[in-house]
């Protein structure tokens, strides 16, 4: 039987278009493996830097009316420790792409981490140009087209594997940033990371997050993320991966109609567990059959045919 859901992104073969988003679980071999076993078509690790980082104190994740607010602060063991987890994962013989999310405080750091990740067996690198709550990295780079170009060029020169840019929605024109990134050598774009947001407790008059301001994810940001994907799809010729508030197959299909070739799921796991990958993929498959599409590729960007 033909797998309608199979799709290729920058040479990465996905058995279905659902992926584990960066920042969710993804720091150990066993949890990445579990996401794969539960049906993810690809997995992105938590963001890894050159050196270990503890992240911020708690509260680092808090629920708001239609999403989650987080300021974890990029906790990770550093690439030199993390390679052990990737190696073990690859040794187990996985059948889906392992994408290592990379952050750095300079273009040099990005390229160093990317090179080690590639050597260890990463199938692609996703550059975190969008974390909204750590200074001197993430969105501070992603909001500046010249810094984006510098980082992408440096990483491109250091690795052969595909480079995916994860962009921040906290910019005036996201398609402009995507264009610059692609011109500098990006092979795909993930849109979007979280939106800067905060919550204040009215009883204690204190911001809830220890870091004060964090990033908003979940259903609250879905319409913004869909718009971003739509705009990027029109601006660049590389595949786009949608991310932001995907809970159901309908959400995933909406992203694909906007121009996404795949979707990343994170926040929804809090509600639906890791079973969300299978339920979204199954629903998409039923949709494709009902609508008479032979492949999920046929609906990518379909809403642009007006």
């Amino acid at each position, binding site marked *: 039987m033909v797998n309608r859901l199979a799709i290729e992104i920058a040479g990465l073969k996905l058995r279905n278009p659902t992926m584990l988003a960066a920042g969710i679980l993804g720091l150990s071999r066993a949890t990445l493996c579990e996401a794969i076993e539960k049906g993810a078509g690809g997995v992105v690790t938590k963001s890894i830097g050159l050196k270990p980082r503890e992240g911020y104190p*708690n*509260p680092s994740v808090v629920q708001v009316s239609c999403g989650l607010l987080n300021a974890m602060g990029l906790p990770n063991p550093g690439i030199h420790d993390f390679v052990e987890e990737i190696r073990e994962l690859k040794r187990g013989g996985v059948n889906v792409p392992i994408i290592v999310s990379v952050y750095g405080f300079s273009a040099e750091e990005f390229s160093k981490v990317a090179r080690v990740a590639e050597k260890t067996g990463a199938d692609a690198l996703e550059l975190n140009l969008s974390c909204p709550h750590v200074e001197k990295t993430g969105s501070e780079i992603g909001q500046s087209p010249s810094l984006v170009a510098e980082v992408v060029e440096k990483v491109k020169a250091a690795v052969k594997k595909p480079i995916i840019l994860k962009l921040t929605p906290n910019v005036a024109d996201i398609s402009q940033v995507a264009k610059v990134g692609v011109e500098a050598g990006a092979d795909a774009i993930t849109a979007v990371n979280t939106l800067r947001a905060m919550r204040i407790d009215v009883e204690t008059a204190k911001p809830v997050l220890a870091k004060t301001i964090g990033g908003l994810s979940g259903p*609250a940001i879905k319409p913004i993320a869909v718009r971003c994907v739509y705009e990027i799809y029109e601006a660049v010729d590389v595949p786009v991966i949608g991310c932001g508030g995907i809970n159901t197959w309908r959400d995933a299909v909406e992203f694909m109609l906007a121009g996404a070739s795949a979707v990343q799921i994170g926040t929804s796991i809090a509600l639906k567990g890791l079973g969300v990958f299978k339920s979204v993929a199954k629903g998409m498959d039923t949709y494709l059959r009902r609508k008479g599409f032979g492949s999920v590729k046929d609906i990518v960007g379909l809403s642009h045919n007006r």
Partner: protein
Amino acid sequence: MSAYLTTANQLRTVRIVSIRDETSTIKSFTFRDRLAAKAMPGQFVMIWIPGIDEVPMSLSTIDSKEGIVAITVEEVGEATSKLHRMKVGDVVGMRGPFGRGYTMMKARNVMIVGGGTGLASLAPLTEKIAQQKGRRITFFLGAKTCAELLFLERTKNVLATMKQRIVVTTEDGSYGTKGLVTEPVELLLAEEKFDMIYACGPELMMYKMFLLAERFKVRFQASLERLMRCAIGLCGTCVIGRYRVCRDGPVFSGEQLREVRDEFGHFKRGFNSKKIAI
């Protein structure tokens, strides 16, 4: 979109209703919170000490009728010492209840083994089992020294009207039998058949209990502790093997622990996810 919300995960502020000194370093704090009071024994809440930290705490009292819960806290760090300085009427944040608690099994002869503040999560479990007919409970309670024995009077009261034995051990011999709690447990397991063992305490004690349960082929449940952040299974801070302690635990069965025996009793992960030997 409101369907998105998980009710338990809503952060609310709760006032301290009462404070009780349990030992020189351990206090219990009581709160009125209907949501948390629906918890099963073994579940936990996240307690936010505004301006300091947010930490996981086992519920040591669960009174669903009165809508009251308590946590029992040892002063060990910044958050817990701030909490220890708080007074009745002061406000903390609360999320939860979270996770999977103890599973009540059809078991006639039950062993409960608690060490240190591990007694906190075992107290409501013991109360629940004590309400059921035809149970026999052997309760092992361990501490470093007499002054640190937690919930001895409470356990005696709860078990007063049923078939029971209470065995107390202290490492320095200042109360009960001298030594580790697992020593008299091992002797008893060799001569008597138990249907179920529940354990909570320091990880090496629980690991030893797990090995004993395996050796004597007794069903086993233990409540694990790991660093936690989100408490809703997203961040990966508390993982052990493929399990998330906040969501798949904190209580795990012997079968689950067998699967993660390379980690359980051997290492945990720090906030940066690096392995730390236990």
